C-alpha cells in the first residue's frame, strides 16, 4: 500500500475543512462516535446540516470562530492507498501553519470559492506551493452548488488561474481542475449528477491514482550524520556507528566515501540495522554506517561520494518565508539549522521582497515582516554542505531560529 501526503490550501472559508470532512464521510471513514459528536455539535450551533469542518477543527478557539487556526493531520485509507492529510488554515495571519502543512506534502489541493474566483490568498498559496515545488496541484473549484453548477463559472476561474500561472517561468507542476461542492458532495468521492458537462473524474479517484513517486533524488548520495552510536559494551568495543537517514542517492558496502568538512576518505564497511546488515543503504532509509578507517566524525558531518560532492560554502542565496511577528532587518543574526548543523548566521542582504499576486519584486524595502517571501543572502559562521533545493529538497532546505526566543522564524530554500 502506497502512502500519499497531501495538504489543503486556499483562502479562509473556501471550504477546505469541509472538503476533508466530506472525504471522510463519503468514504465511510468516520466511526459512529465521531459522527454523533459532529451531529450534536452541529445541532448546538443551530445548523440544519452537518458541519463537517467540525471534524478537523480540533481546537475550541477554531470551533468558536468557525475558522482553522493550525494544521490538523487527518488519516484515512481506501483499498489501495493510505492518505495523510494536512488541513491548513486559509487566514493570512496563519500562513506559517499553511507552509508547515505544505512542506511535507507531495500534492496540494488549492480550493477556490466559485462565487469569488481567484483572489489574493489563492495566489499567495499557489506561490508558496510553487516555491516549495510541490509536484502535483489540484485546483478544486468549490461551492459549485451556489453558482447553479454553471460550466461558465468553472471555465472562467480556470482561465483566470492559468493566466496567473503564466507569470511563473520555471513552473513544472501538473495542475488538475475539478468542480466540486464540499457541502453537497459533488465530485468529491462520488461523481456529480449536477455537472454532466464535467467529463473528468472525482477528486478521490484522482488522489487514488496520481503518481506519488514522481520525485526522489537517486543520483546524489548524501548522508548527514544524525547521531554517533557508541555502545560502550564488551561485545562492541571501539564501535563507532554513524546513524542517519540517506536523504538522497544510496551507499553500498565497499564504496569510497568522503567525509565533510574534513575531506577525509574511507570506505563503507558495514550498513547496520536492527533487522540485520544490508549490502546497500537506499534513499530514505534510516541506517547506521560503519567505516573502514577511524575518522573523526560528529553530528552534522556529511558522508558523500568522492566524485559527487555538494557545494561547500559560508554564503548562500535563498528564498525565505518569514514566520515571526518580529521584523527581520538586514544584518540580523540568527541560527541556521541545515542537515543537522546548527550554526550562527547573518542575513547579510535582502535582495528583494516579492509580491505574491503581482509577482513584482520590491528591491527598496530592507525589512521583512510576517508572511513576507524574500530573496536574501545569508552568511554562516561555518561552511554548509548544500545542494540547490531544486535538485535536492532535503539538502536544500533550512530553517532560521531566533537565538533568544528559540522560535523557528523562517523556512528557507537554497537557490
Amino acid at each position, binding site marked *: *500500500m*502506497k*502512502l500519499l501526503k497531501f495538504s489543503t490550501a486556499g483562502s479562509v472559508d473556501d471550504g477546505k475543512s469541509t472538503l476533508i470532512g466530506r472525504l471522510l464521510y463519503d468514504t465511510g471513514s468516520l*466511526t*459512529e*462516535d*465521531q459522527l454523533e459528536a459532529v451531529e450534536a455539535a452541529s445541532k448546538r450551533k443551530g445548523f440544519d446540516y452537518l458541519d463537517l469542518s467540525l*471534524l*478537523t*477543527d*480540533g*481546537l*475550541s*478557539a477554531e*470551533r468558536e470562530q468557525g475558522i482553522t*487556526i493550525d*494544521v*490538523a*493531520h*487527518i*488519516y484515512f*485509507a481506501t483499498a489501495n492507498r*493510505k492518505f495523510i492529510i494536512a488541513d491548513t488554515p486559509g487566514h493570512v495571519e496563519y500562513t*506559517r501553519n499553511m*507552509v*508547515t502543512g505544505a*512542506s511535507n506534502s507531495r500534492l496540494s489541493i488549492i480550493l477556490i470559492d466559485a462565487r469569488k474566483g481567484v483572489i489574493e490568498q489563492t495566489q499567495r498559496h499557489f506561490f508558496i506551493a510553487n516555491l516549495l515545488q510541490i509536484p502535483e496541484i489540484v485546483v478544486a473549484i468549490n461551492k459549485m452548488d451556489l453558482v447553479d453548477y454553471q460550466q461558465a463559472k468553472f471555465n472562467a476561474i480556470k482561465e483566470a488561474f492559468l493566466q496567473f500561472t503564466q507569470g511563473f517561468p520555471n513552473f513544472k507542476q501538473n495542475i488538475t481542475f475539478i468542480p466540486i461542492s464540499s457541502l453537497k458532495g459533488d465530485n468529491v468521492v462520488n461523481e456529480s449528477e449536477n455537472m454532466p458537462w464535467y467529463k473528468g473524474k472525482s477528486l478521490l479517484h484522482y488522489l487514488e491514482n496520481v503518481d506519488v513517486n514522481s520525485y526522489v533524488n537517486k543520483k546524489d548520495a548524501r548522508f548527514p550524520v*544524525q*547521531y554517533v*552510536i*557508541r*555502545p*560502550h*559494551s564488551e*561485545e*562492541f568495543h571501539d*564501535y563507532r556507528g554513524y*546513524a542517519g*537517514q540517506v536523504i538522497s542517492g544510496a551507499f553500498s558496502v565497499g564504496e569510497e566515501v568522503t567525509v565533510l568538512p574534513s575531506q577525509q576518505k574511507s570506505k563503507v564497511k558495514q550498513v*547496520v*540495522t*536492527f*533487522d540485520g546488515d544490508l549490502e546497500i543503504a537506499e534513499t*530514505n*532509509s*534510516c541506517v*547506521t554506517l560503519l567505516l573502514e578507517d577511524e575518522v573523526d566524525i560528529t553530528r552534522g558531518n556529511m558522508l558523500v561520494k568522492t566524485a559527487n560532492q555538494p557545494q561547500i560554502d559560508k554564503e548562500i542565496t535563498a528564498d525565505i518565508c518569514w514566520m515571526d511577528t518580529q521584523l527581520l532587518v538586514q544584518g540580523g543574526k540568527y*541560527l541556521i*539549522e541545515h542537515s*543537522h548543523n546548527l550554526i550562527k548566521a547573518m542575513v547579510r542582504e535582502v535582495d528583494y521582497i516579492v509580491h505574491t499576486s503581482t509577482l513584482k519584486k520590491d528591491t527598496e524595502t530592507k525589512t521583512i515582516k510576517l508572511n513576507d517571501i524574500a530573496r536574501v543572502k545569508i552568511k554562516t559562521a561555518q561552511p554548509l554542505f548544500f545542494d540547490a533545493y531544486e535538485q535536492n*529538497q*532535503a539538502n536544500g*532546505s*533550512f*530553517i532560521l*531560529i531566533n537565538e533568544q526566543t*528559540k*522560535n*523557528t522564524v523562517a*523556512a528557507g530554500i537554497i537557490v
Partner: protein
Amino acid sequence: MSSNHLKELEEESIYIMREVAAQFERPALLFSGGKDSITLVHLARKAFYPAKFPFPLVHIDTGHNFPETLTFRDQLVGKIGAQLIVRYVQDSINQKKATEETGKYASRNSLQTVTLLDTIEEFKFDACIGGARRDEEKARAKERIFSVRDEFGSWEPKRQRPELWGHLNGMINYGENVRCFPISNWTELDVWNYIKQEKLNLPSIYFTHQREVLIRDGQIFPYSEFLNMDGEEISTQDVRFRTVGDMTCTAAVSSTAGTLDDIISEIKSSRISERGARMDDKRSEAAMEKRKLAGYF
C-alpha cells in the same frame, strides 16, 4: 496490507528518536505499558542498535493498573535491560499536591499530570517521548512532533512552532520542556499491523479473556476495587481492551478476538473509534484539549 507504508512510518519514527537523543541532554520515554508505548520501545531499540537506547523509561503509576500490564512492564524491562523509573500518583495525593476525585466517575487519569510534572522537575527531563497519535483525537490532530511546553507543562496551541520538512527545532529556554511524539503519523491500524509484522508481545488484556464487568452508560467496565459502584450488576463476559489506561476510565469491548489477525479484522470493521472507549474523553467536546493545556501528554 503490504509493509510498504509501515516501512516509511518506521523510518520517520527512528529519525525522530535519533533527533531527540541528539538534541536533548536528559530525555525520557513515557511508558504506560500500552500497545503504543510498547511500539515506541521497539522503535527506540531499532534506532540505537547495537547500543541501548540512551534514555530511561518513566512510568507514572496511577495505582489503578491492570496487574497484567505491570507484570508485562517488568518482564520487558528485564529482557531489554532498560532503566525504569516509576513515580506514583498516590504519593502526589499523600503530599496533598493532587486531590482524589469523588463520585461515580472518579478517575486518577487527570491526576497523572501532577505526578508527571513533578517527575520532570525531579529528574530535570528536557524531553519526554510519548506515544500519542494524531488520529486518536481532534486536539491531538493539532500537535506538532516536537511540542514545546512551558514550565507548567502547558500546551499553547496558538504559539506552536512551524515544523518544516524534517527540521525539528528542539531549542528551549530554561525550565521549558518538549514532548516528542515519534508515532504522530501512525493510525491505530498501523500500530496493530506493525505489532504483527514485528512479532511484538503485548499484555494479555489486549486479547479476549473472561472478566467480571458491569455496564455503565452503555459501556462495558472492568470491575475492580477502585471503581465507585452505583448499584450496577456484575457479570462475567468475553472481553478485551482496545486501549489501556487507568482501570477506572478504560472500557472494554465485547470480543472473542484471540489473535493479532482477529484483532486487526475487528478494528477494520469497527464502527467505534479507539478513544470511544475512554471515559476521560467523553467528559466534554474539548476534554483532551483542556487536559493538554494543563500539562497532560
